[in-house]
Each structure stands twice: as C-alpha cells, then as structure tokens.
C-alpha cells in the first residue's frame, strides 16, 4: 500500500490534529483493515442513537431478492453469511469458524460457529446454514445472487455444527460468494410461509449485530442493538436511524445543525460545502465501484474492434473523473481501485490507456469511417456524475470525428436494455465484492455460462475466466486474470474510467467508523458516540 492510499484511509482532519500519532496509526492500518467489520475500539462508550442521513432510500430489506446497493449497505448489519469480505480482499470466517478443503478442491467441510442466536430467539445450527444456501442457489427462488452459486452441487449439514459442501468443479471464489451481498443464514424453513419475503421488511430474522426495529417508507429504517449478539462487547450503539433525506440541500443543513450525525455524500459540490465546517469530519476511502463506458457489440459500428479501440484511445479518463466527481476518485485501467494492488495490471502496462488521437483516427479510417460517425450515448437520470461526464466525453470523441448524441433514460428503462443485452453505448456504474471471478465472470463470460451483457463473444477471454474461476493457486490465478485484463484492454468491451471514493461526512463525536470499500455500513458495528 502506497503512502497516498494510506493517507486516504485516514480522516484528513484527524491527521492534521494528531500529527505524528496519526501517521503511526496509519502504519497499523492495513493489518486492522482485515478485522471483522473494522477495528474494535479502545475506550468506547456504549449507548446512544446515531442518525445517518441517506439520499437514497432502501427499496426493501430482503437480502435474498432485493439487489439494490441501497438495500445491501443496510442489511449487512442485520444478516450474516458464512464469510466476511474485507476491504483488503480476504474472506474471513464470520458465521463459519474455519474450513477444510479436500485435495481435489471439490469438497469443503465448514465448521459453523457455536452459540449464535437468530433475532427470532432460536439457536443457529448447521441445518439453518444448509437450508439458507440451498434456498439462494436455487434459481427458482428468484434470487439475483443465484448465479454466483452455480458450481455447487450439494450442501448438507453433517452434524449440528458442520456442513459439507460439494462442488461440481473447483471455484476459487466460493468463500467470497458466501459473503454478505446476497442471502444470509436464516432459520430453516423461513421461506415456507407465503408472506415470508414481504415480512422481511417488518422483522429481521438474521444473526447480525443489529435487528430491525422499524421500516417506514420515505422516512426511516431504524435498527436496534442485538442484545444477544455473539461477538462479545459489540456493538456499541443502542440504535441507528437511517433517515431518508431526498434533498441534498436539506441533508447538508441537517449535518450542519446536528440533526444528522453521519452521511455518505457523492456529489462533489455537496462535499465541498461541508469540508471546512467546524465539528464535521470528512472521511475518504477508495472503493470497489467503477464508473465505466460500456460498448455493446449489438450496436454497429461498435461490433468492429478497431472502432472500440479508437474510442478508447480518444478517452481521457482523468479529465472525465475531474469533471464528474471533482477529483474524489481514482482513475483505473481494468481493475477497481481497491482491488488494484491484489489483482490489477498496472495501468501503464495496458494498451489503449493513453490518449492518442492520430492512432485513433487511423483505426477509424481502417474500419471504413474516415469521417467519423454518429453515436448515441445513454446516461441514467439521477446519476449526477454521468451528466458532466457525458458532456466531457462528447468533446473528447469529437476530436476523432465521432459525433455524440446524449440520451438520458430513467433507470427502469436502462435496466431493461441492460438485461436484454441492448445496452448500446452507455455509461455504467456498478460495484463488486473483492474477487475477480465475481467481478468479471457474469459480465464478460460468453453465453450460456456467463451473461455477456455487451455481446462481446470473446472466446479467449471466456477461456481465461473459466480457468481463473477454478485455479486455487493465488499466484497462478493472478497471472490468469492479468492475461484476461490484457485482452479486455485490447478488445475494449468496456472502458473502466475511475473508481469514485466513498466520502463519508460525520460529526466529530462519531468515533471509530471505518468505511468499508464496498460502501456498505459494516463499520457501524464498531462505531460509538463520544459524550
């Protein structure tokens, strides 16, 4: 980890205030980053209510069927999977205690934590674990996460605290898959009741540090401390109110006046307004998300690789990043910022990353477009960064004769186009959990194993994705994904522009909040309020 990234982990204000001490803390940072939910606090005070302001409300709280990030970031505090995905990219045992893998890489024997209770009061056993994972991996149950569990052929409880999981072929990402994005361990038979899915919006049935107290649409999601939680001494907070504040102006006023103790912000103009306010601390951490330009091959002339390369050579990622998020982000090549160190190919070792107008023009001429062509860029209404980025991109592409029209569509329309693989030329904004298989496979593996949303149909890349999924040796795996990224940069099904930082503003009294790279609110399980 380089020093600038290290410093990003710290609150800049804290750094100024504490001087040398903060640097010492920073050096301990990377080790602590691999703790469950973030580092435990020393001298923490228990109690208190934290008010978190959210511009985007959770559409629902069902961890099995609701795929929105606005849901996931909250439900990770109520529900737990077998493993925890650290910001550093490791899968730590959570409801699991440990596991053994058979030499052929096909059978996992996973030891399940003892003494864990559901919010409903019952004790959690291996039977519940098997039930929950068998439920989610069955596509017929309608979970968006089902596809990630595809290689599992059986999960069964062998005794109260052990499960045996058999795979049809080795899957190096399986532990990360059993993390907390989709699904969780819930009581056996939970989904037998016809109203089970909808009831998840009223009562939580997980094992996490907080349980659901109230979900009032357009108003608040309130979580209460789980008094029976299995980790000793945590959480510290008695209650968290996630308050829905749809207006940015209102959220900023609330932060200044202490109505809101903490809020994630995304618009640079909002961040600047609170950066120098007394009593507020702005924290900034790199992320697993990516803002990208997708190039669907179903839209001519994007089916011609030369055209896609030409576009890539005309794109100045840094300029777009500055224009759209005001510098609160990291320009990337073919890997999201927080996974770059573990899995990424250095950006200067990848093709088509530096602007080269002459080369781009030549490629276009070779492809039969010496005078450029007309192209429509789709952006999503409500994604503020896309508006500024679109205008910048239009200027950049004009230099190679590509005349860009900008079409703003509503998110429902955009998703329909995406799912039916008619995405065309569009901005995209998505995030991953830290494993390259989970990042790339579904999006880029050709049909039918993958979804290949961009109609890329690249067999060499697909072969590498299959290899990367089954390879268990970390060094060989990194090499495989390195080669995959080279192909991606060369053939350009997508142009990954930048990872926007997670910017969290909090009152000074809010202590020990560690923003996870996913953007989820894991850190609140370790947060306390100073009196």
């Amino acid at each position: 980890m380089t020093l600038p990234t290290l410093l990003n982990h710290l609150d800049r204000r804290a750094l100024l205030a504490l001087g040398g001490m903060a640097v010492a803390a920073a050096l301990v940072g990377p080790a602590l980053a691999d703790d469950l939910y973030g580092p435990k606090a020393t001298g923490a005070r228990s109690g208190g209510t934290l008010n978190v302001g959210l511009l985007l409300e959770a559409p629902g709280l069902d961890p099995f069927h609701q795929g929105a990030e606005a849901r996931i970031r909250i439900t990770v505090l109520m529900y737990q999977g077998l493993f925890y995905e650290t910001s550093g990219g490791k899968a730590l045992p959570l409801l699991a205690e440990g596991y053994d893998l058979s030499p052929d890489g096909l059978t996992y024997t996973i030891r399940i934590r003892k003494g864990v209770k559901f919010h409903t009061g019952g004790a959690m056993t291996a039977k519940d674990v098997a039930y929950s994972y068998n439920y989610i991996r069955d596509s017929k149950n309608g979970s968006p996460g089902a596809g990630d569990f595809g290689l599992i052929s059986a999960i069964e409880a062998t005794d109260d605290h052990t499960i045996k999981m058999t795979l049809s072929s080795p899957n190096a990402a399986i532990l990360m898959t059993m993390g907390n994005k989709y699904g969780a361990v819930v009581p056996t038979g939970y989904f037998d009741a016809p109203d089970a899915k909808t009831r998840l919006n009223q009562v939580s049935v997980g094992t996490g540090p907080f349980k659901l107290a109230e979900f009032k649409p357009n108003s608040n999601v309130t979580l209460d401390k789980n008094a029976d939680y299995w980790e000793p001494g945590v959480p510290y907070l008695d209650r968290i109110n996630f308050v829905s504040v749809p207006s940015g102006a209102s959220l900023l006023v609330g932060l200044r006046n202490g109505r809101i103790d903490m809020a994630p912000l995304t618009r640079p103009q909002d961040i600047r307004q609170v950066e120098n306010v007394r009593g507020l601390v702005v924290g900034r951490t790199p992320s697993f998300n990516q803002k990208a330009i997708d190039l669907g091959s179903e839209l001519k002339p994007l089916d011609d690789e030369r055209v896609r390369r030409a576009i890539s050579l005309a794109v100045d990622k840094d300029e777009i990043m500055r224009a759209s998020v005001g510098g609160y982000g990291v320009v990337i090549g073919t890997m999201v910022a927080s996974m770059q160190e573990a899995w990424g190919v250095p950006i200067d070792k990848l093709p088509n990353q530096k602007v080269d107008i002459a080369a781009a023009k030549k490629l276009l001429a070779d492809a039969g477009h010496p005078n450029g062509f007309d192209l429509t860029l789709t952006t999503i209404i409500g994604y503020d960064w896309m508006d500024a980025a679109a205008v910048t991109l239009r200027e950049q592409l004009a230099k190679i004769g590509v005349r860009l029209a900008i079409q703003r569509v509503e998110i429902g329309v955009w998703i329909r186009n995406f799912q039916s693989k008619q995405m065309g030329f569009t901005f995209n904004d998505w995030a991953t959990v830290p494993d390259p298989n989970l990042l790339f496979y579904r999006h880029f593996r050709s049909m039918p194993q993958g979804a290949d949303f961009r109609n890329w149909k690249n067999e060499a890349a697909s072969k590498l994705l299959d290899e990367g999924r089954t390879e268990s040796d970390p060094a060989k795996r990194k090499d495989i994904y390195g080669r995959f990224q080279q192909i991606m940069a060369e053939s350009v099904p997508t142009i990954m522009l930048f990872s926007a930082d997670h910017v969290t503003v909090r009152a000074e009294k809010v202590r020990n909040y560690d923003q996870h790279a996913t953007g989820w609110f894991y850190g609140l399980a370790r947060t306390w309020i100073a009196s």
Partner: protein
Amino acid sequence: MAVYLIKRLAASVLTALLASIVVFLMMRSVPGDVVGQMLGQTSDPVATQALREFFGLDQPAWRQYLGWLSRVVSGDLGTSWTRGQPVGGLIGSALLVTLQLSVATLVLATAIGVPLGVVAAMNEGKLVDRAIQSFTLLGLAAPVFWVGLMLLVGISTATGWSPPLLYVSPAQSLRENLSIMALPIVSLAVLQAAAYSQFVRQSVVSAFSDDYVRTAVAKGMTRNVVFFRHVLRNVAIPLVTFMGLILVQILGGAVIIESLFSLPGLGRLMLSAIETRDYPVLQGALLIVVVLAMAVNLGVDMLYRVIDPRVQVG
C-alpha cells in the same frame, strides 16, 4: 337532492373506474418492471421468471387488472411489492401527512390572502393597495421549491436551527410535529396566499361596480357596511370554487415540498413507487387521489347550496 347525489356518486364511480384503467395502462406501457429493479445488473432468466410469477407479472394485463379491481372492490388495495406492507396502511399514513400539509396551508393561505385582498380592494389605487399588489406579484413569481429552500437555508444559517428530519405525527407530539411542518406549510402558503389575495381583490373590486352595491351605497350605507352585508356574500361563491382549485394545486406542490423537507407524504410515496415500479402502491395511491379530487369537487358544489339557497343542484 338525494337523486342528484346518487347521480353524482354514480358518475364518480364511473370516472374512478376509467381513471384506474388509464393509470393501469400507463404504468404497464412504461418500460421496465419491479423484477428488473430488484435484479439490477444480473439477468438469470430462471430467477427473472420466478419473480415475475411471484408478482403475477406473467399473467396477461387484463387478468392482472381484473384481479386488482376485484380485490379493490372488496376493500383490499393489496401489498406493496417492494415494501411488503399493506398498501392501504402505506397510503393511509402518507395521506395523513399530505392532508395535514394541505389543509394547514389552505387555512394559512386563506387567513393571509383573503384579508390582504379585501384591504387592497377597499383601498383601490392607494399606496396600501400597491404594496399588497407588489407582495402578491412576488409571491406568484416565486416557485414553491425556491421559497422552501430559501426559508430552510436562510433560517438555518441565521439561527442554527433546522426542522427535524424524522417525521413525527401530531398524535405522537404536536409540538415536535409543528416544528417539522411549520416551514413546509409556510413555503406552500406564500404562493397560495398571493393567488388568493389577487383573486379576492379582483372579485371585490368588480362587485363594487355592480348595481346592487351602487343601490346600497345610494341608500347611504357606508362602504364597510356594504362590504360586510352584501359584497362578502356574493364573493363567497367564486371564493369556494377557487378554494377547491387551490387545494388541488397544493397537492401538486406538496410533492416538491415533501422531498425538500423529508416528509413521508403521498407525493413522495407515489414518486418512489414510480421509480421502483411498485404497481399496487401507485395504482392505489392514484385511485385515492382521484377519489379525493372528486370529493373536493362534490363538496364545493354542495357548499354553493349552503351559501346561496337559490342555487339549484340537480
């Protein structure tokens, strides 16, 4: 009267039915559905199909509509697809917020607008009139959103106070509730008070040139007596009509104000239902809005009769 009422109600039911069909068709013709929203950037066809079946989206549209209608007729608005809560309850609590906002705005706007209009009319052409007219123009020109934002930011900058963001109902704590609702109500009332004052001024000024007023004045009555005894009555009817119109306008402005001040009202409920394609919530909420608008109209017509017994309804 009874016959008239029955006729009106029958017509209302028919209108509501037609409106529900239009709403239903409009929603289904918008691309995307709740399943797409839930699955996001995944597209497992089996999972998609399973969820579509769960929500009944695999059925033909006419069957979905009849299913919804038969449940509504039996008093069940269904369950929200994304919130998992009964639609009736969701709409009920949102409606209370919006109604409080609208009625309080109406009362405040009337309390400010009507006296201003009367004072302006009684002093037609004088300085007072001009001052009031200027205020009126300003109020009419300022968008609700802008007024709300200026009040919020202005008051918070000046005093360090801003309204609480977590809604509290009047039943829980009237004081807390008022501290939340005061700014939104004032923001909405500014425009309506201005509109009111202009309307009232116009009506009163024109009434003063009517024959019956001239006769009254000729009898030697003072302007004030003429106003209270004759003019006010005659102005009342258009005023009630105008009130009905304003109430509908306030409901529209409420959508914006609810978002700005984080109020869990009907406007925001509908907005989020559109975004997530939560058909049961949207259809239910729109039905309630249509019924409400019709009820206001009917109420206005009934009021005419109370104000002026000469008005024959039916």
